[in-house]
C-alpha cells in the first residue's frame, strides 16, 4: 500500500566506519490481565467494536477509575526481572493531548515517578570476535494505558468520495501497558541493528517467561519504538535522534535501525542536520518516512492524576514477588546449554529465533535436541520469517515436530518426507500422522519394490553399474538417487544403498 521511496542513504559499512551510533529503545507491552487498567472491561482481542467499553474508559463525566491490582503486580515483577529498583511511592499522571484515540483528552500514565527504574538486561550478539554480551541499561518501566484504534476513511486515498474522517473503536483504550525505556545504548558500533533486535528478543523472552503478556508483535501486544542517533566518535555528545514507530517484528527492529543509520549519515554528509522527529517504518518498502516533528505542540502538561491515589508497594510485597520470579532467562539458557551440550553461538541462534520454549518443549517430548533445533531455527524459522509471523504463531506445535521426529527415528520417514509432513501440517492438513496417511508419505520399507527400482536404475545406467562392480562404490550415489527419484523420495536412502551393494555383491570400502 505504501509507495514511499528511500531517501538518499549511505552504504552501511561506510556509515559504521565514520559514525558512532547510539540506540534507545522503548517497548510497550500490553499486559495479559483479564480486565483493563482502570475499569472492569474485558481485554479480549478481536471483539466487536465498542463492546468492551464503559463510562471509565470512554471518559464519561463523573466516572472514577480504580487501579487493577494484577497490573501493578505485573509491573513490579517486570521491574524486578529487569533488575530495577521498585519505587517506594509513586503516582499516576495525566498526559494531556487532543487526539481522538483517547476519549478523555488525556492518557493516564506515569511521569517522573515510574514504578520501576535503573535496571539492566544483558543480551548476547554474535560478533567477529565471537559471542559478546551487551548490557542494556534500563532507564524506567512505567504503567500506562493503551489507546483506542482509529481507522481513517477517505481523504488522500480517495476511496470514499468526499469523505475525510476517522472511525474510532475504544475496545483497546485502557488496556494496561507497561512502557520499558532504555538509557541511551552506546558502543554497539556496527552491531547496533543486531543489538536492538537481540534486546527486543531477550525482553520478549523475559516477558513471556513472566507470563505477564502474550507478547505478540503482530497483534500489537509488544510494540517497539527505536531511537537512533549518530555522532562522529564515542566521546562526542549525543547526536540528534529520531524515533521510529510501527516496528512490528523482530526483523523490522534490525532493519529499521540499519536504515535510519544509513539515512541519517546521508543527511549529515550533506551538511544538514538530523531533524528530531517521529518516523514511521514501512515494512514493505524497508524505509522510514517523516512523521510529526517534535515541537511545543507536544507540551503534555503532565500533572498528578487526582482520581487515583498513590501506589506504595510494601517492601514485603516486593520481596515476595521477587522470590516467586521464574528462572531468569540467562540462567535458564546456561542450564539448557549444558543439558543439550551446545555452544554459546548455537544457544544464541535458538534464542534469537524466538525458539527456546519450542525447542525445549520438543525435546521434552522425546526429540533429539539437534533435530529439534534444526526444525525450529531452520526450516520453520525461515517460513515464519517469510510470512512475517512469530515462530510460535505458525500453525504447528512442539507436539507435531516431536511426532515427525519420532517417525524419522522409527525409519517411517526420511528427511525429505519429514519436510513434506511439516509442510502438510503447516497447510492445515491435520496432525503429522494424518498428513502421512492422506498424502501417502510412508517410507517404502518393503524390499520388493525397492529391488525392482534398483534393477530398473541399473539397467538404465549400465556404465555406472559396471563402475560399481569394478569397486567404485562412490558411484553408487547416482543409482541411489535414481531410485529415490523413482520412488518419489519415499525410500530410505540408506536401505536402498545397502540393497544395491548387496545386489552387486560389493562391500563398502
Amino acid at each position, binding site marked *: 500500500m505504501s509507495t514511499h521511496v528511500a531517501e538518499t542513504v549511505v552504504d552501511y559499512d561506510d556509515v559504521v566506519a565514520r559514525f558512532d551510533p547510539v540506540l534507545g529503545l522503548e517497548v510497550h507491552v500490553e499486559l495479559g490481565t483479564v480486565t483493563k487498567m482502570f475499569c472492569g*472491561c474485558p481485554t479480549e482481542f478481536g471483539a466487536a467494536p465498542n463492546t468492551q467499553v*464503559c*463510562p471509565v474508559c470512554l471518559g464519561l463525566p463523573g466516572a472514577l477509575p480504580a*487501579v487493577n491490582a494484577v497490573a501493578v503486580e505485573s509491573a513490579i515483577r517486570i521491574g524486578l526481572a529487569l533488575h530495577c529498583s521498585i519505587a517506594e511511592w509513586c503516582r499516576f499522571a495525566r498526559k494531556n493531548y487532543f487526539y481522538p484515540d483517547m476519549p478523555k483528552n488525556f492518557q493516564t500514565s506515569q511521569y517522573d515517578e515510574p514504578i520501576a527504574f535503573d535496571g539492566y538486561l544483558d543480551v548476547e550478539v554474535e560478533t567477529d570476535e565471537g559471542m559478546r554480551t551487551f548490557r542494556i541499561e534500563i532507564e524506567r518501566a512505567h504503567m500506562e494505558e493503551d489507546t483506542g484504534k482509529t*481507522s481513517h476513511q477517505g*481523504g488522500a486515498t480517495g476511496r470514499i468520495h468526499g469523505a*475525510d474522517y476517522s472511525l*474510532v473503536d475504544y475496545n483497546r483504550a485502557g488496556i494496561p501497558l507497561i512502557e520499558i525505556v532504555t538509557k541511551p545504548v552506546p558502543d554497539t558500533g556496527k552491531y547496533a541493528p543486531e543489538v536492538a533486535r537481540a534486546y527486543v528478543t531477550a525482553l520478549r523472552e523475559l516477558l513471556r517467561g513472566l507470563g505477564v503478556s502474550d507478547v505478540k508483535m503482530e497483534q500489537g501486544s509488544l510494540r517497539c519504538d527505536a531511537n537512533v542517533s549518530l555522532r562522529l566518535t564515542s566521546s562526542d555528545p549525543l547526536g540528534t535522534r529520531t524515533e521510529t514507530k510501527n516496528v512490528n517484528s523482530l526483523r523490522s527492529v534490525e532493519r529499521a535501525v540499519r536504515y535510519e543509520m544509513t539515512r541519517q549519515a546521508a543527511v549529515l554528509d550533506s551538511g544538514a542536520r538530523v531533524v528530531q522527529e517521529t518516523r514511521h517504518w514501512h515494512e514493505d518498502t524497508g524505509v522510514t518516512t517523516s512523521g510529526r516533528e517534535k515541537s511545543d505542540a507536544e507540551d503534555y502538561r503532565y500533572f498528578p492524576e487526582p482520581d*487515583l491515589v498513590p501506589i506504595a508497594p510494601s517492601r514485603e510485597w516486593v520481596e515476595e514477588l521477587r522470590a516467586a520470579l521464574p528462572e531468569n532467562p540467562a540462567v535458564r539458557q546456561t542450564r539448557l546449554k549444558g543439558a543439550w551440550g551446545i555452544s554459546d553461538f548455537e544457544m544464541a541462534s535458538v534464542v534469537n529465533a524466538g525458539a527456546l520454549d519450542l525447542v525445549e518443549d520438543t525435546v521434552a517430548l522425546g526429540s533429539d535436541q539437534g533435530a529439534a533445533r534444526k526444525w525450529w531455527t531452520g526450516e520453520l524459522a525461515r517460513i515464519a520469517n517469510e510470512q512475517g509471523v512469530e515462530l510460535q504463531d505458525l500453525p504447528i506445535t512442539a507436539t507435531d515436530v516431536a511426532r515427525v521426529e519420532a517417525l524419522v527415528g522409527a525409519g517411517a520417514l526420511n528427511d525429505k518426507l519429514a519436510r513434506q509432513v511439516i509442510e502438510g501440517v503447516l497447510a492445515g492438513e491435520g496432525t503429522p500422522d494424518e498428513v502421512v496417511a492422506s498424502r501417502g508419505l510412508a517410507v517404502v520399507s518393503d524390499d520388493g519394490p525397492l529391488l525392482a527400482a534398483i534393477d530398473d536404475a541399473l539397467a538404465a545406467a549400465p556404465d555406472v553399474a559396471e563402475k560399481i562392480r569394478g569397486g567404485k562404490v562412490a558411484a553408487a550415489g547416482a543409482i541411489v538417487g535414481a531410485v529415490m527419484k523413482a520412488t518419489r523420495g519415499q525410500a530410505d536412502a540408506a536401505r536402498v544403498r545397502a540393497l544395491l551393494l548387496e545386489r552387486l555383491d560389493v562391500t563398502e570400502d
Partner: protein
Amino acid sequence: MADTPSITRDDVAHLARLARIDLPPESLDHYAEQLGVILGAVAQVSEVATADVPPTSHPLPLVNVFREDVVRPSLTNSEALSGAPSVESERFRVPRILDEE
C-alpha cells in the same frame, strides 16, 4: 509574600493553543492579567507552606487502592454510542485529524 508566578501574553497564547481555544490576539493581555491575579491568589498558599510541609497532590492519606482483576459488565455498543454526535460502522465517527498516516 512569596514570589507570585507571572504570566505573560506569550504564555496565554501558548496555553490557548494547547487547549485548542481560539483567543483573539487583542484579548491576550486581558487574560494574562486575569490569570496573573488567579495565580497570585493561589500562591498565597506558599506563605503558610513551610519547608517541612511537602507538596501534595492528594488530600487523603490513602495509598494502594486497588481493584481485583475481575470483569464487570461493559456497555452495549448502542449504549456506548448513544451520546456520540456521529456514528458509523459501530464506531465513533470523528473529524480527520492532521498529520495522520
